[in-house]
């Protein structure tokens, strides 16, 4: 990228960040075809002068522009090995350039911004000190791995982030050898890191293992299970606790920033401000130093004891688990980070070490720093103003409708309470929290605890609604089976993000919930086909008080049907579906959002002279036997459609058809489910096409079953 010192006649002001006084022209880029000119960056005293030109510098004035920022040093780095000869000063400059690159890239594609900005210095320090990919660096959850991806050979692909056939938004083993473990759900890296460390020990190798985990992920039990084991095995590994005091998502509720949830966060905070105790410890150290000599073992014991006693309740927690605690460390100071990491790296036989690094989410981009949610997850935005380009939609998301439905039910029934696991925004329960602050519980990233906690509430006669994403419910499956279903406790599960979820990819895909819920003997399993049905199903769930129930709804917005009056649903009759279109010959029995695809397929087939029956099953358990019998007996073809894996709705229908003798007749039955592979991230439309569940696919299936192959091909090739 050439740096030209020529000035430009036309300067366009970019919002408030521009200041037309003596700007020193320093770099220019023309975005092919566009007539916008990069405003020359204002030189403030932070800009480092070097032979050959000035540098991109993030000042408090914070000019960000829509064109790619100049990143001369970052341009020379394709892989971490190119960093090895840099001085610490250059590393600082590299961090700044990396930061501006992250902002620029995320502004073009959307993605997770705040977390990535918080770990820029940490990423640079880690790659500088350690030798990936031989040294393993694991990123918990993975959404903060954007700087890591830029530094490890994927910078030229950053514009494809989270898009079909592009980079994944989380670390992924099949994408690069520098991503040593795939993450997406939280709190897995210490476990995986320990596994890699032990594997290394068994093979007799000497590489390092570093697991980066956040304070939010620390609220999950698995992190403690891993640390407990790590302390016991005493294998060499480094755990970096990235503490930015943000435990739940979004990092704010509707009224402003929320304090972190849980007792652990205050313990971590206390660790950071520990002065009086530290002074006492200095005294103790002085004493042990004086003992010295052959008494060093005794002195070591004294010091250890003193350390445990006075180094603060938080670090004792990690020490007790067997991890050596170092910190807190300023996570934005490259000097400190590099010297600590170098020290730990060169020390032999450390056992497990925990480095407590304090960072700020969204650091370096003022709009993110100031925002209540720290720009955790954003869509495309304008870097100069921080404004996101949110689309306009006539309808709201299913998440919002669910929250409104639950609020309406809770107004009428004071026993209704809501529980979520650090996902107040994602589940919509922030709205519920605002309305009923005493009846909404955020347990931190602890789905297992959330479910059993709900079970306990149900024992006391309350009506708990557990709002957990379909994919995260996988974590709590034993609790669902053993604590809820086995005892037949009336816990209601609201599973958002069911089916394919788009850009987040297979780590967040809710493919399996129908399968694992519908096989449980006491569970009522239902799925709304549109937002009005969602309101009714919330009411139904609230009314079912003698057994557990669940319902699933997809990511995305409603289709625009009329909502029930007062936003309060009416309980449905359990085990009864409905017929939407009466037709002949072919029946489509849809479950959940797939019903909309069935309706679209039916309209596609109208033009071919076929009038299909479309039915909405509503319930996967108990099935509407009468409806299925009727459809099977009066049609030639019965096709079930669902956005779930094998073993779900379709399989239950198959079981019933077989046992009822309906398959002994002349009806042709076909199930349409998600294919037996993981669907990669991409746009929802692309994913659905990849899965084979678009209306065109359904129509083509109908034609195939009716032996009209030509029409099937026609409908598949004419889809847009």
């Amino acid at each position, binding site marked *: 990228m050439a740096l030209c010192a020529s000035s430009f006649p036309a300067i366009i002001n970019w919002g408030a960040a521009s200041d037309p006084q003596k700007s020193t022209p320093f770099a220019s880029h023309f975005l092919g075809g566009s007539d916008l000119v990069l405003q020359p960056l204002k030189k403030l005293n932070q800009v480092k002068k070097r032979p050959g030109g000035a540098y991109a510098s993030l000042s408090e004035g914070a000019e960000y522009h829509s064109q790619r920022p100049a990143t001369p040093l970052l341009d020379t780095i394709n892989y971490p090995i190119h960093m090895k000869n840099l001085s610490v000063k250059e590393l600082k400059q590299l961090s700044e350039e990396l930061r501006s690159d992250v902002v620029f890239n995320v502004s073009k594609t959307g993605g997770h911004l705040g977390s990535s900005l918080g770990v820029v210095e940490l990423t640079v320090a880690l790659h500088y000190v350690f030798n990936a990919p031989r040294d393993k660096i694991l990123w918990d959850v993975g959404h903060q791995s954007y700087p890591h991806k830029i530094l490890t050979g994927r910078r030229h692909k950053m514009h494809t982030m989270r898009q079909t056939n592009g980079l994944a938004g989380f670390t992924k083993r099949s994408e690069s050898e520098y991503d040593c473990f795939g993450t997406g759900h939280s709190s897995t890296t210490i476990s995986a890191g320990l596994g890699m460390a032990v594997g290394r020990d068994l093979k007799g190798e000497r590489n390092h293992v570093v697991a980066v985990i956040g304070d939010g992920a620390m609220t999950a039990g698995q992190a403690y299970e891993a640390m407990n084991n790590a302390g016991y095995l005493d294998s060499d590994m480094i755990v970096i606790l990235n503490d930015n005091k943000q435990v739940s998502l979004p990092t704010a509720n509707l*009224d402003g920033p929320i304090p972190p949830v849980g007792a652990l966060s205050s313990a971590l905070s206390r660790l950071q401000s520990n002065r009086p105790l530290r002074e006492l410890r200095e005294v103790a150290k002085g004493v042990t130093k004086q003992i010295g000599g052959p008494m060093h073992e005794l002195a070591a014991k004294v010091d250890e004891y003193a350390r445990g006693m006075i180094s603060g309740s938080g670090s004792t927690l990690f020490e007790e688990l067997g991890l*050596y605690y170092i910190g807190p460390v300023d996570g934005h100071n490259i000097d400190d980070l590099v010297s600590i990491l170098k020290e730990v790296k060169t020390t032999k036989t450390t*056992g497990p070490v925990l480095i407590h690094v304090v960072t700020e989410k969204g650091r370096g981009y003022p709009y993110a720093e100031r925002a209540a949610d720290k720009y955790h997850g954003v869509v495309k935005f304008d870097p100069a103003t921080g404004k996101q380009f949110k689309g306009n939609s006539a309808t709201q998301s299913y998440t919002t409708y669910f929250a409104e439905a639950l609020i309406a039910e809770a107004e009428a029934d004071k026993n209704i309470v809501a529980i979520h696991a650090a996902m107040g925004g994602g589940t919509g329960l922030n709205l519920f929290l605002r309305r009923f602050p005493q009846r909404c519980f955020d347990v931190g990233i602890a789905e297992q605890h959330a479910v059993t906690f709900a079970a306990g509430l149900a024992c006391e006669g309350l009506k708990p609604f557990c709002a957990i994403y379909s994919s995260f419910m996988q974590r709590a499956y034993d609790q669902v089976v053993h604590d809820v279903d086995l005892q037949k406790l009336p816990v209601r599960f609201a599973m958002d993000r069911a089916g394919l979820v788009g850009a987040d990819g297979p780590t967040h895909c809710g493919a399996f919930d129908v399968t694992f819920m519908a096989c449980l003997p006491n569970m009522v399993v239902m799925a709304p086909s549109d937002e009005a049905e969602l309101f009714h199903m919330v009411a139904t769930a609230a009314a079912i008080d003698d057994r557990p129930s669940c319902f699933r709804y997809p990511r995305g917005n409603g289709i625009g049907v009329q909502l029930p009056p007062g936003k309060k649903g009416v309980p449905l009759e359990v085990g009864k579906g409905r017929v939407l279109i009466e037709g002949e010959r072919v029946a489509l029995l849809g479950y959940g959002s797939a019903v909309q695809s069935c309706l679209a397929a039916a309209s596609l087939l109208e033009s071919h002279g076929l009038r299909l029956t479309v039915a909405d099953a509503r319930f996967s358990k108990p099935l509407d036997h009468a409806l299925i019998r009727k459809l099977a007996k009066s049609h030639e073809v019965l096709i079930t459609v669902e956005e779930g894996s094998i073993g779900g709705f379709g399989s239950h229908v198959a079981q019933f058809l077989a046992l009822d003798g309906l398959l002994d007749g002349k009806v042709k039955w076909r199930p349409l489910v998600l294919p037996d592979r993981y669907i990669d991230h991409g746009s929802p439309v692309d994913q659905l096409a990849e899965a084979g569940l678009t209306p065109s696919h359904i129509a083509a299936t109908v034609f195939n079953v009716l032996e009209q192959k030509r029409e099937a091909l026609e409908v598949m090739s004419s889809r847009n």
Partner: protein
Amino acid sequence: MRCSYGLTAIPGTDARFFSPETSFLQLRRTFQPTRIKFGLFKIKAKIDEARKEMSFYELLGISERGTSLEIKQAYKQLARKYHPDVSPPDRVEEYTERFIRVQEAYETLSDPRRRALYDKDLALGIHLAFSARRRYQYDEDLEDRSEWKNRWQSQLSELKRRSRNRDAGGNMSWGARMRRQREELSKEL
């Protein structure tokens, strides 16, 4: 020295760390913004005096369950009333003092984290003076950060010291055994 702010009343922990010093309590009567040193161990009876003082909520004139909007409105109203520029000339000092207190109340109550801490202390009956509370912030300032550096440097040297003796024959942990094995293998080669 700002020791005592870090040691708030946490149920179940050692009470002797929590008493504020006498002298600064008296200070609250006549508000002086000078920095005062206070020690760790003092008589707890003085805290009863604290209870007679107005809590931040009473100062702002809102209930303890006030929303952030209410707090903001109350603050704006009172700030406009007590600001030195608009206070009547004969009561400037008193009004200024109130203004500063109102401002502090707002600062604490508008930040949910600090408000949570304040509510907790209030429930336990401890109402530390404004100036003392001001230091009970979790926003790290530079002093804290340089403290950190000293701390982790000593932790690193301790780590190095420990690692020297770590794999001595007595240590039977799995990791130690594997490391010894690896050393022996590399020695053979």
